[in-house]
């Protein structure tokens, strides 16, 4: 239930065009899209990107309400940044002035653009998270980082660690909830009172949580060893995500839009 506010790790299984894309392609396109966002600088270029992301969302077959939920936890950060931009940017015709603060037509427009940028980045990462299982994501990262193996960078170890960590997130969340309940039953008030009080009540939560996590880790490593695990760099793979035709097509569409953005920007 704690998880319900976070989009991260909230994979929604499905069969859409986007779901079926390979994770490495989705990751690459997401990075590429973020870069393109910073190239846009006028209304028409932003409009193109909005159309592109909306089309992507429609193709993912996921209800828009999930995207709105994804924005909610970040709302204050967005408002704060946009306000800073509006209040402190220079240039343009002043509309309102008070002390060191001034609002100009230009700063309002800049604030609006920043807001759209945030929205676009959040939408894109939400599509990525909701359509890609954490496991596939770990595999995608592993595939993309493969060239680093030549530099003796432990790519496979990293991917395995990531996938096990992700697998234990719900288990630990569950345990957090149980321990909190047990301590509340013993009279602890979580989430109210002074900072000092809050730090104090964290102890009966964190110590059991850590001891639990250490036990899990010890047992898990014994179980892995018993199943023949020696070294994460010498294993075969059960899942292989091949780059597919649909990945190439999607990428080409994004490149096309990027070219258009470059053409129409100021």
């Amino acid at each position, binding site marked *: 239930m704690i998880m319900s506010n976070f989009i991260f790790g909230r994979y929604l299984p499905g069969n859409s065009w986007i779901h079926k894309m390979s994770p490495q392609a989705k990751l690459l396109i997401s990075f590429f899209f973020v870069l393109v966002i910073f190239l846009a600088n006028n209304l028409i270029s932003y409009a193109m990107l909005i159309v592109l992301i909306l089309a992507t969302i429609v193709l993912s077959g996921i209800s828009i309400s999930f995207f709105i939920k994804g924005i909610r936890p970040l709302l204050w950060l967005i408002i704060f940044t946009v306000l800073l931009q509006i209040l402190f940017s220079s240039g343009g015709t002043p509309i309102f002035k008070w002390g060191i603060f001034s609002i100009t037509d230009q700063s309002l427009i800049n604030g609006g653009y920043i807001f759209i940028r945030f929205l676009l980045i959040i939408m894109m990462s939400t599509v990525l998270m909701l359509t890609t299982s954490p496991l596939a994501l770990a595999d995608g990262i592993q595939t993309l980082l493969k060239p680093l193996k030549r530099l003796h960078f432990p790519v496979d170890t990293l991917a395995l660690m990531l996938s096990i960590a992700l697998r234990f997130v719900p288990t630990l969340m569950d345990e957090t909830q149980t321990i909190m309940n047990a301590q509340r039953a013993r009279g602890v008030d979580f989430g109210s009172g002074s900072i000092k009080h809050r730090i104090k009540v964290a102890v009966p939560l964190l110590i059991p949580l850590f001891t639990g996590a250490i036990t899990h880790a010890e047992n898990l490593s014994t179980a892995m060893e018993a*199943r023949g695990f020696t070294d994460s760099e010498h294993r*075969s793979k059960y899942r292989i995500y091949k780059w597919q035709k649909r990945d190439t097509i999607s990428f080409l569409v994004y490149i096309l839009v990027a070219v258009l953005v470059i053409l129409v920007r100021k």
Partner: protein
Amino acid sequence: MKNIIEVKNISFKYPEQSEIFKDLSFEIKRGEWTAIIGQNGSGKSTIAKLIDGLYQPMSGEIFVDDLLVNEENINKIHKKIGLVFQNPDDQFVGATVEDDVAFGLENQLMSTDEMHTIVEKSLKSVNMWEYRERVPESLSGGQKQRVAIAGIIALAPQIIILDESTSMLDPLGRKDIIDLIYRLKQELNLTVISITHDIDEAALADRIMILNQGQLVEATDPNDMFSNEDKLLELGLDVPYTVKLMDALRQQGLDVPHRYMDEGELVKWITQLK
């Protein structure tokens, strides 16, 4: 019958603790089901880990299928033995059911195609194939243990060791896992060692071994063993239900034979009263 496991004069202690085993020797016969019982803290689980080479004895030797358990042979030993642990969550390595079953196969560097065939076969044999895409948090404890068993039989072991594998399950889940192991033992010609508190699990065994003060002795007579309630509790077991009922029947004047009967046998015996 030939011995599949031979433990010869081993001693073992954990760091900064006193010795749990001193000069311990015993054998396990191929194809048998052996239950190991003993009090909490008697070192039952340590035995499983020693046999599988997860811990090294201070002295003495262990042979599994004629192979000495040591650093050099450790991969072969792990392939011969499948261990099912107590906590269902702590042995679920993969992100989904099928990934978990594949984990051991990936360690063997098996090809992807071959893995898919074996994962399917293993999950079908524990009736978890429809759950292949599920994540662990959506499964019950019993279902997770089924997946653990699938992950083990995927590696085609000769021996399965149940290290208190049913102790965290509810009674139906417990029975389910025991029935499953019983069936797999027949189908795959397995040797089973179950370390347990569960009397129904122990009563299924061909042999019961009792761990007491660092020594393992075979219980010679199930009748004696199952009727001494105090001693059983001391060893971490309850009295089998049928023994309690036979006792109650006897005390009310019925002449019940003095031998251990399981539920099926006792039902059969009672129906002959008519």
